[in-house]
């Protein structure tokens, strides 16, 4: 069975009939006629025989991977952020923000390419920008650079601000399980003011596996 998590920038694919690890490919490189058996994400209904919505996939993936009865799981994608909160084994809160979380992951990746930065080598700053969205936050960077901050420092404050915003969106938990490509970004992960457990970018695929 071919499972797919169609992201805005990257697609995660898993063929359950082979032992191969999940594959990540850029969305723009996906074949035009590509069809999955079961999928979630962007245009999943059009590109698969059966689809489930992303919050459901995230929650089921969290149940499968985390296993506990109380947890908050936040997924930071290219275009949006979403979370589920479980208490005593029940989903008690969830959120999906495609507006104020807009283009967060996408902007963070774009900035690294534009300024040629390695997020693994940037320390978490003591303060960050107060921002709610990637697009609007860009102007903070330009203002800060004009007023004398280095590009690296300005971007670090931006990333910290984005992480803090995502943290508040998820309800400011003491422990946060993180899903999505940003798990690989040490500056982003280190900017959360709580204990973060990174689950990587295949949580939604795990949710699809659990939904089969």
């Amino acid at each position, binding site marked *: 069975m071919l499972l797919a998590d169609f992201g805005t920038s990257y697609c995660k694919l898993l063929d359950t009939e082979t032992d191969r690890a999940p594959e990540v490919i850029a969305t723009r490189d996906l074949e035009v006629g590509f069809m999955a058996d079961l999928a979630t994400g962007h245009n999943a209904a059009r590109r698969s025989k059966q689809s489930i*919505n992303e919050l459901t996939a995230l929650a089921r993936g969290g149940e499968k991977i985390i296993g506990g009865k109380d947890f908050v799981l936040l997924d930071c994608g290219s275009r949006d952020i979403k979370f589920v909160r479980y208490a005593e*084994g*029940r989903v008690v809160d*969830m959120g999906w923000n*495609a507006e104020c979380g807009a283009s967060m992951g996408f902007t963070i990746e774009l900035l690294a390419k534009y300024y040629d930065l390695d997020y693994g080598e940037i320390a978490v700053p003591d303060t960050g920008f107060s921002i709610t969205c990637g697009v609007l936050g860009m102007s903070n960077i330009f203002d800060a650079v004009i007023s004398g901050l280095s590009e690296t420092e300005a971007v670090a404050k931006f990333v910290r601000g984005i992480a803090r915003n995502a943290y508040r969106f998820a309800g400011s938990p003491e422990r946060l399980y993180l899903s999505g490509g940003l798990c690989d970004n040490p500056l982003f992960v280190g900017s959360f003011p709580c204990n973060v457990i990174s689950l990587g970018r295949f949580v939604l695929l795990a949710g699809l596996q659990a939904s089969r």
Partner: protein
Amino acid sequence: MTERVGIVGIPPRSVITDLHRRRVLIFDLDEPQVRASLDLTASHLPRVYCAVLRTVVLNAMHLHLDCIYIDVGPGKCDCALHVSTILKNMLDIPIHCTRNQDMEGAGIPLCRTRMPLLAKMTGITAGVLEPEPEKGPAACRPTAGFWGVPPRDFSLLTLFPDTTHVYGWTRCMENKTPADLELESYVNPNVPTVFFAQSFCAKTALAKFLADQHPQGLYLDCDVTAGSSARAKIEAFFELSHSLFSEK
């Protein structure tokens, strides 16, 4: 010629009875009645304002009414009170402000029956135009709850199961007691419930509060239309809460 009267909110039963006696044509201005862009109201109301009341102003601009009854008391909201000032300034017709404090319950059969939620909501809002309640259908066992006001975008109601019970101000509407805060605050803790409010409405505070108290409540606010993330939240909420409920 038949008199054309607009109503906003739920004017007192005595007013509705009188309108029926006068055989006027009643328009519920809270609901979309004309095909025109809400942006046309921008010269009268801020764009960041309750979409239901922006709809009221849009309707009032187009419907050639003879007069309007607008409820502005505890059965509606301060936003409506301020819209009444705008309507008075905008239109050359009588704008009658009412403060509905009716407390005699008319019953809530539609809120508790088995029926697509969209049809249920349409029946409840249509009932506002009638002075006397109809004898309603039988109650069903609830598996889900919708708490709140009738949304500006009824399409989100299609995501609920037919066995959804209706709570909040919509229940007060059917009961013809719009100022009954106790009834408005009543919820059933045993069914997963979506606590809905229009964005920029004071009821968002009560919706959020009740959702936080509820063992399985989801807070949701929407403006003019329910976007894909709002729809996905409702879908996932019911999918996940039902499977968990049945396991318990």
